[in-house]
């Protein structure tokens, strides 16, 4: 059964310097509060994994938590570029950021392989693109029945995956709905997992479109109401689009970014 913990405890227990960490979420249910707690606790040398590194990864990168990024699309969704990500890649600020770059289909299948206990996944992908020239772990594999050549990518096995969900019950069963992206796979692929939730309830009443993660497949659950802000939690909140638009200006300038982190993250208390 998953342990119910505070967000600060959860991050302290489960996210360690040097870890491979996936904070997943596909525009919806982004674990911002958990990301801020990682910044507050000063984690370093993380390999950050995510299909769509967005504003929270921009913040983690700018705050110096990351050494490496494994990803398939790094942007401010619906707005434009991530300036901290660009500054790290183009100018090595605040430090160099090693990249391992894939396509969405490749990343999704890497999580599927991880969740499935397989060392690799097979897909039709990458062929003819320049990605395999720069990403070492894209190989070809031959179908033993037809002789056809396909693409293989290795399983992703994060040390810890962090996701945000709408609800959990007291046994740590987690319920999420709406766009649930690759979160189930990312949790099941990981050695440890931390799920922040809008609320802990006595009973999870069924919801159409729900994905339920049984408590025995999750390491820890932390209540973090509003923990997806400025992204949204369907049924609980709407996207704070002004924040995303405003982030463009905040993140363009190193000093303004650092000031924002000091004021909005470091001085804030961990929730719960």
């Amino acid at each position, binding site marked *: 059964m998953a342990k119910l913990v505070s967000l600060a405890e959860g991050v302290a227990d489960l996210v360690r310097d040097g870890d491979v960490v996936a904070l997943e979420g596909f525009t919806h249910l982004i674990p911002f509060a958990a990301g801020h707690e990682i910044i507050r606790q000063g984690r370093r040398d993380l390999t950050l994994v995510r299909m769509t590194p967005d504003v929270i990864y921009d913040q983690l990168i700018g705050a110096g938590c990351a050494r490496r990024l494994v*990803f398939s699309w790094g*942007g401010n*969704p619906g707005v434009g570029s991530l300036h901290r990500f660009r500054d790290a890649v183009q100018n090595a600020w605040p430090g160099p950021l090693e990249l391992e770059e894939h*396509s969405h*289909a490749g990343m*999704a299948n890497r999580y599927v392989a991880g969740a499935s206990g397989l060392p690799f996944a097979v897909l039709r992908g990458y*062929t*003819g693109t320049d990605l395999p020239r720069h990403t070492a772990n894209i190989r070809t594999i031959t179908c033993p029945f037809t002789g056809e050549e396909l693409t293989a990518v290795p399983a992703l096995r994060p040390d810890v995956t962090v996701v945000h969900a709408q609800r959990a019950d007291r046994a740590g069963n987690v319920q999420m709905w709406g*766009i649930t992206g690759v979160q189930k796979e990312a949790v099941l692929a990981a050695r440890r997992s931390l799920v922040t939730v809008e609320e802990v309830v006595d009973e999870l009443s069924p919801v159409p479109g729900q994905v339920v993660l049984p408590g025995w497949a999750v390491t820890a659950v932390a209540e973090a109401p509003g923990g997806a802000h400025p992204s949204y939690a369907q049924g609980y909140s709407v996207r704070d689009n002004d924040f995303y638009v405003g982030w463009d200006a905040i993140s363009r300038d190193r000093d303004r970014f650092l000031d924002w982190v000091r004021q909005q993250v470091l001085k804030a208390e961990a929730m719960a």
Partner: protein
Amino acid sequence: MSGAYTADEMMTVAAARQLRDGAACFVGIGLPSTAANLARATHAPNLVLVYESGCLGAKPDRLPLSIGDGILADTADAVVSVPEVFNYWLQPGRIDVGFLGAAQLDRYGNINTTVIGGEYDDPTVRLPGAGGAPEIAASCGEVVVIVRQNLRTFTERVDFVTSVGYGSGPGDRQRLGLRGGGPRMVITDLGVLEPAPDTCELTLTRLHPGVTVAQARAATGWALAVADQLVTNEPPTADELAVLRALEATKGTR
């Protein structure tokens, strides 16, 4: 360009017109999403919008803020996981049209959305990257690209092939084992380019009203081929413009 509409509006309208009613369309965010939603609101009410966030058959009544906007899930026929949308829906060739943007595009319709200038490890501009585009470009029945035409974007050689068009020419898609048909059309703020059947080279086949061949050539980083029968696009109808502007006005509202 008439004062009645902008070049971007003409481009969006021209793109929307390319979407057949009833087709399944894999929609990228930004210009493709606007055009696809315009098509659904005008001549193609049964257009099936598929978003990589897992929303199949989304029917938003406003422009989504991102490919993961809640309105897509709320109005979809089915919301599936991200692995499923790629594996069960895109990869087997179930999607008729892939609708993509581009940061750079070459004469064979190859697309770059990764890095511009310098080396891959030390680029002049780091772009967001591949996302779903490589497999959309590989697997959809056909690809429609919507992109503003200028020398920065329309380049002799893309700095990075993120998504394959026709590679280096005829036969390349087959050789690579790509099962979709490749770019059928590139729609810009100046006109429309289509691959020549024999060479696969993107050829100017249509101009928007008031645009000249010279303007299109000046905005293209390669020696632009021009079709013998160059057609002028119909300007946006009043209805198309009204619907488009109503859609655009929903941006940022909820």
